Structures are given as C-alpha cells and as structure tokens.
C-alpha cells in the first residue's frame, strides 16, 4: 500500500510550521510579529513543555518557545518527515525506535540522578534522534491506517 505523496508534503508542512513557531524568536527577532506569536502560542506551548527558562535554547538573547529537548524532538520530526521523501524505512523500525529513545531516556535518568548537570546540547541531540525515528514510526502507522481504510 502506498500513501499519496500529498500526505508526506502535508506532514512536512505541519512539522515545518510547528518548527517556525518554536524558533520564531530566533528566526525573526523579538520585535516583529514574534511578540504576537508568543502571546497567543506561549500558552499553547505551555501545555506541551514546562518552558523552564534555564532549559530554553538562547541565541542572540532570543529563545525558543520550548526547552532544548522538545526543540530537538520537533526539529527531528521535521528532518524525519523530509527524510521520508528520500529514505524508505523498511525493516526493524521498532527496534531502531527503541534504540533511538534510549539516549534520551538515559540522559533524563543521568542528569536527574545528578550524575552530570543538564546540558542543552545533549538534550537537543538526544531529542533530535528520538524525533527522527518517532516520525518514521508514526509514518509506518499512517501507512497502515491508509491500507486499513482502503
């Protein structure tokens, strides 16, 4: 069963829009329409992320709307959706997903237990890895859903 390419582009568009919102302050600066976005979406993003100021990615005094780990996950989802155009994930998707989740889980366990202090870079990278393979798993589920509906 092949899913129309339109769906891949829709997925890319959705993840791209989400990433634009998350990185809006960094991408466009703080004083243009980003303030408006922040007021209206800040509350929405508070539902999906703790938005702890110490854990936000900050570039040129402008921060992301979600923490480094969440930014990694959503940016990874964007990369994952783009990769669907070029890569055919065929086998062992579940195993790869479990292995990709492991670094993120270990990072959470290690820094929570005080083994090392919180690192935005590690959080972003492990989130990114998780996001890419989470999207491939979601894609497999969408393909299965389509074949069920047809």
């Amino acid at each position, binding site marked *: 069963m092949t899913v129309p390419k339109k769906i891949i582009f829709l997925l890319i568009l959705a993840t791209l829009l989400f990433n634009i919102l998350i990185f809006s302050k960094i991408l466009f600066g703080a004083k243009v329409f980003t303030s408006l976005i922040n007021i209206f979406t800040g509350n929405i993003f508070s539902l999906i*992320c703790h938005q702890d100021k110490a854990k936000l990615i900050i570039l040129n005094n402008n921060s992301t709307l979600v923490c480094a780990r969440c930014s990694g996950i959503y940016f990874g989802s964007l990369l994952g959706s783009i990769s669907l155009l070029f890569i055919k994930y065929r086998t062992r998707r579940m195993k790869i997903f479990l292995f990709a989740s492991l670094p993120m889980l270990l990072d959470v366990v290690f820094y929570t237990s005080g083994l090392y202090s919180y690192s935005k870079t590690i959080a972003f990278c492990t989130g990114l890895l998780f996001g890419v393979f989470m999207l491939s798993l979601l894609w497999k*589920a969408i393909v*299965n859903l389509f074949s069920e509906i047809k």
Partner: protein
Amino acid sequence: MKKYLSALVCGFGAGVLQVVPIAKSFSCCLIIPAAVIIALLLDRKSTNQPKSVKIPYRKALIIGILTGLYAALFGSFFDVMITFITKNNDLLAALPEIQRMIGDLPFNEALRKEISDLFSLIADEIKTSGFSIIYTASILFNNFIVNTIFGIIGGLIGAQIINSKTTGLE
C-alpha cells in the same frame, strides 16, 4: 459509551496530571500519548482480545482522539476549578512579561492598549472572583487543539508499538 470507557478513564487521568505541577513539568508532551497507549491496552483487556490480535489503526485513532478530548475537558475543568479556589494561576504570574510583549507589538498605540486592557481585565476577574470567561474559553480552546493532536499521534504510535509485539519487532 462503554465501548470507549478506557478513553474516558485515561483521559481523566491525563487531565488530572496536566494540572499537577511536578508531573506536568516531568512528562510534558508525553502525558497524552502515554494515556492513549494505556487506553489502548485497557480497551484490549476489557474486550478480552487475545494479544495475538492486532489493534485496528482506525480504532486506535478514535481512542486517541477521544482520550485527547476527555483530557482536554477534565484538564480545563480542573484548571478552572483551581483558579476559582486559589484566585491565582500561571497567567497572573506571566502578566508582566505579557504586558512587555504587548509593548513590542508592531501595532498602533490604540490597538496595543486594547490588547493590554483585555489581559488586565482577565487578570482582574481572576483576582476578584477567580473566574474569567475569556480565560476559560482560551484554556478550553488550547486544550482541545493540543490534546487532540497529541491524542492522534499517541493513538497511531501506540497501535504501532502494541501491534509490533504481535508480529515481532518489525
């Protein structure tokens, strides 16, 4: 109704966790997908389906949406109730920053003042009576959108994870 009782139970649990500060900051975006996965497992148990039978993706999608909707409903209700009792919430804490952001908006002075007054009105209503209809509507709207999206994602991924156990790790 009984068919989707698992969605109601897990949606209620997720709604409660959404307003518990520590749980909220630890699990953030994972609350709803985790609730949907538990709902799928509960549904399988309640219908006495053997583990070898795959969960239909359409059903997983419906349970995901319903769990998200119930979580939004209960989460909003608890949020409004806590605001009503304590006469305080996150919006009041963030108000000075919001007012500063409004000052940065590329609009004319009159419009900026109107937006600022609206936020002040909401803050005053919460401080005096503990209830604001605008705040309640915005919470409901946000929760319904976000929780439904994450419910759908959780339903599809959850079905994929659970079904992979019936066919081995594919």
